[in-house]
């Protein structure tokens, strides 16, 4: 499967990717009605109640004491129920949330696939959206041209690229979003599960490109509910609950404990596992 280089590779070839997460906690202050208001805060400060207000502030602990390290070659799957902190962990790794406790160190270029429609504007043309996304990712002008060619070749939108997104069919929007997101090849790839959703026809074609990108990344962190995807793509699994890591280890073993039974081995088809993948132990 020796394909021509696809996508735009970002990052420094010299430095290997590495992630160190050390006792990280992230909490969200809940600014509901009262504390959102300047008036209430000023009055509270004037009457000496600010301290009390602060200690009574409701805080949601999204991550608690999370620690792990990943080096080049690691494929980490994040599993756990909704609200377990998977997405918060991905956002913390992406540098969007800065931790309140602990230390995060990310070495290597990062592409975080968290929002399929990042920066896309329905009123702009396909080509303008491509340029915008490229600029969001800090590409230079030569890379922007390559991005446009690459996305054009994959999304097969033809002349629609010069038309505004709002007249696209929903399938075309998905194709464009997917092509854009997978065009930029980082050293560290952070991926949320939405990415694996999509209609099956498209996914057939998309999967090859996605796998190509995953393969190109030195480190993958994938958050997913789909046990078979995690088993196929990851060699290590972090099981999270209420913001804590409750198990960390080899994917088959943790998944079995998580599901309560071994991951059912499906027929090997193009849509469920990468091709040429050796059977896992």
């Amino acid at each position, binding site marked *: 499967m020796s394909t021509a280089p696809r996508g735009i*590779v970002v990052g420094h070839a010299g430095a290997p990717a590495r992630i160190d997460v050390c006792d990280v906690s992230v909490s969200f202050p809940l600014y509901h009605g009262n504390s959102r208001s300047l008036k209430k805060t000023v009055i509270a400060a004037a009457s000496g109640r600010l301290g009390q207000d602060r200690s009574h502030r409701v805080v949601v602990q999204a991550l608690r004491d999370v620690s792990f390290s990943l080096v080049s070659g690691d494929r980490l799957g994040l599993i756990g129920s909704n609200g377990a902190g998977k997405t918060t962990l991905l956002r913390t790794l992406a540098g969007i949330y800065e931790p309140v406790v602990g230390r995060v160190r990310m070495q290597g270029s990062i592409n975080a696939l968290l929002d399929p429609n990042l920066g896309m504007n329905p009123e702009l043309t396909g080509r303008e959206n491509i340029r915008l996304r490229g600029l969001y990712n800090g590409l230079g002008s030569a890379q922007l041209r390559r991005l446009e060619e690459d996305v054009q070749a994959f999304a097969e939108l033809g002349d629609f690229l010069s038309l505004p997104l709002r007249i696209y069919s929903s399938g075309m929007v998905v194709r464009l979003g997917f092509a854009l997101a997978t065009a930029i090849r980082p050293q560290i790839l952070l991926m949320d599960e939405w990415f694996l959703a999509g209609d099956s026809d498209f996914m057939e074609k998309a999967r090859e490109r996605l796998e190509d990108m995953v393969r190109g990344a030195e480190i993958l962190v994938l958050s997913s509910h789909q046990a078979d995807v995690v088993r196929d*793509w990851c060699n290590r699994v972090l099981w999270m609950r209420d913001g804590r890591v409750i198990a960390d280890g080899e994917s088959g073993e943790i998944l079995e404990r998580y599901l309560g039974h071994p991951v059912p081995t499906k027929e090997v088809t193009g849509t469920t596992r990468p091709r040429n993948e050796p059977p896992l132990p």
Partner: protein
Amino acid sequence: MRRDAGEVRQKGDAGHAIDAGGLRAGPGSAIGAPSMNSAAIEHPNPAMPAVVLEFTAGMSFAERHRLALRDVADAVHLWRLAWMLGWFDIRLRYRGSMLGPFWLTLSTGVMIGMLGVLYSALFHLSVREYLPYLAVSQILWLFLSTIVSEACTCFTLVEAVIRSIRMPFMLHALRNVVRNLLVLAHNVVVIVIVYAGFGLWPGMSLLLTIPALLLWFIDAVAVTLLLGMFCARFRDIPPIVGSLMQIFFFVTPILWKPEQLGHFAAYLPLNPFYVLLEILRGPLIGAPPPLGVWLAASIYSLLLCMGAWLLFVRARGRLAFWI
């Protein structure tokens, strides 16, 4: 458990290396990715220079300061994005209209024409004397007041972007400034038309607009950062800002001239909007302001920038949690 994972990793690597089609294990695998890696980087990515991102909780002021400086440097590298976002904002606002952004010019022109005639009658001034003054004042004020009111939403409106990709926060502030500078550029056409119509030329004092514009740019960025952060945290600020700007519109000499105030004019420099307006308006109407006005404008700007910067250094890391 960690050790288990390590062993699995090694096993995995061996497997992939054999079939050469599995997941790439590192910069030595056989898929051809490494060569692509080195060949494809024609331009090292300016947005991620050293590509090391490090956050430690309980950072010292110096560390926060460093991260804030990096935020600004990254935003400067992304100036093309800020420019494009600002430009698209304007284009989309006037999408599908025949004149496009020149609607701005037209509507400002009509308003200034009407107000100019009306107020010159009210103030018993000649149109020739009053209209150029009003055109310059009104257009500059439009810029100031829109910068301030749109600053309030500069972070809250881009919530989705902030939550899905790490971007320098300064970028969103620059976008606000770029957008309003473009609006100003469209409105300047009205000033040119008025001046041409009356055959006026402000003279060499026009050169003084350069330092004034520079100061305006810096202040615009600072006020956008400051208010953007405050408004992300406290949601009742935008209406307060709105009504304050309304008041300042009337107490600042825009429709009226400072001379009309008599001896009260001595108190005008207490109004920061007055001195800031004056440093740019003076050169444009051929009456460069005295040094004192420049001094006052510099002091106000310094205070504003210091306030904005201190808040930015302190709150930058929390901003993503607030929106």
